[in-house]
């Protein structure tokens, strides 16, 4: 059967793509951010997952507000990046995993998660930045990616309890897949930040660190927040924590934190990197 062998939280901001494209990783501004990544890359290179399930939000590349899915899942064999309008380099295609994607869609829609199921889906920095962070130089083509996109732009949005439940349903779907493959789950984005309004620039370091702690040991506490609570505590775009919460929903039993780095600010955000393992079910 398929196994989730671990999970990662990471930032996905576009400025990271620019920093990597321009070779700025060792400049004083970026060094504390990038120096945290090698242990996670080493773990991924050692474990060699077949599939990454990647929770992200689209920032107006694939989806516009003419039709805005609350939850969407990609079921394609390949995904393409495209011009996002502000000059970050367009990167090579991302490999998909159609069979497992459809299995997950079948399983979770039957459980009551009414997904938008996408055979074509342009993927933006929310998905591509984490892949390039883990396999620099766009060396991610060997790993198969299942994009799961959560609306973080327009209210109403799925609440944290619901994104956590989505993660749990995806975890069950993976467990019920009969092929022996290893899966790692990425929760991307966040953490505290606010881009818009006179409150722009808001960052809440203490809140972010508390969220990282709770992602390890007390995820149920995070599901008690509403999205508006997240806005209050972490700024308007802290609703992106939903991707981390969904990731955590896929994990079972006692969760072990293998690596953590918190650094702020990166661009306008607090950035939390974590590598987690959990109690895998007996096969």
């Amino acid at each position, binding site marked *: 059967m398929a196994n989730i062998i671990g999970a990662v939280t990471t930032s996905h901001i576009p400025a990271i793509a620019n920093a990597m494209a321009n070779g700025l990783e060792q400049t004083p501004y970026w060094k504390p951010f990038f120096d945290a990544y090698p242990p996670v890359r080493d773990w991924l290179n050692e474990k060699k997952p077949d599939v990454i399930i990647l929770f992200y939000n689209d920032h107006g590349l694939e989806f*516009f*507000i003419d039709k805005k899915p609350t939850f969407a899942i990609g079921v394609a064999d390949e995904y393409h990046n495209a011009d996002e*309008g502000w*000059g970050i380099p367009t990167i090579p295609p991302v490999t998909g995993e159609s069979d497992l994607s459809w299995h997950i869609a079948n399983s979770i829609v039957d459980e009551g998660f009414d997904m938008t199921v996408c055979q074509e889906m342009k993927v933006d920095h929310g998905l591509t930045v984490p892949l390039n962070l883990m396999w620099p130089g766009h060396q991610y083509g060997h790993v198969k990616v299942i994009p799961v996109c959560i609306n973080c732009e327009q209210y109403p949005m799925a609440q944290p309890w619901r994104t956590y439940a989505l993660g749990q349903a995806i975890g069950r779907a993976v467990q019920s897949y009969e092929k022996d493959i290893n899966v790692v789950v990425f929760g991307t984005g966040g953490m505290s930040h606010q881009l*818009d309004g006179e409150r*722009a620039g808001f960052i809440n*370091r203490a809140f972010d660190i508390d969220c990282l702690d709770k992602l390890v040991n007390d995820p149920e506490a995070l599901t008690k927040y509403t999205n508006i609570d997240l806005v209050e505590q972490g700024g308007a775009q802290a609703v992106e924590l939903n991707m981390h919460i969904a990731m955590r929903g896929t994990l079972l039993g006692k969760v072990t934190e293998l690596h953590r780095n918190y650094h702020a600010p990166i661009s*306008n955000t607090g950035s939390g990197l974590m590598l987690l393992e959990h109690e895998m079910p007996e096969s």
Partner: protein
Amino acid sequence: MASNYTDRHFQGTYLFDGQMAKKGYGLNKMCYTFNEQVARDEFNTDPNAYCDKFKLSAAQKDAIHNKDIIALLREGGSIYYLAKFAGLLKLNMQDIGGLQTGMTTDAFKAMLEKNGRGEI
């Protein structure tokens, strides 16, 4: 009003709910096209004509003309699409932060550093 998502308000924060999404639809639709170079070129050639194509209101056109991000938010702009307008203007998120808070970009960056260290 029923289309408001919540009664909770935070100073300097514009929640993008149904009411705003409706008000800003044309504005956001225009900014969404800025994903494409051909649209950015067309806007740059004649901004007013391009705004008219998307039926922007007078207030939205003024805000675009003045690069007034706060006014664009009040007129229903979503930051995701306004970011593409900012990209067209060659402004980054710290420039945009400065414009919205009345600071220079450097002062805004200094505030981010301070907030990042937890010195709120």
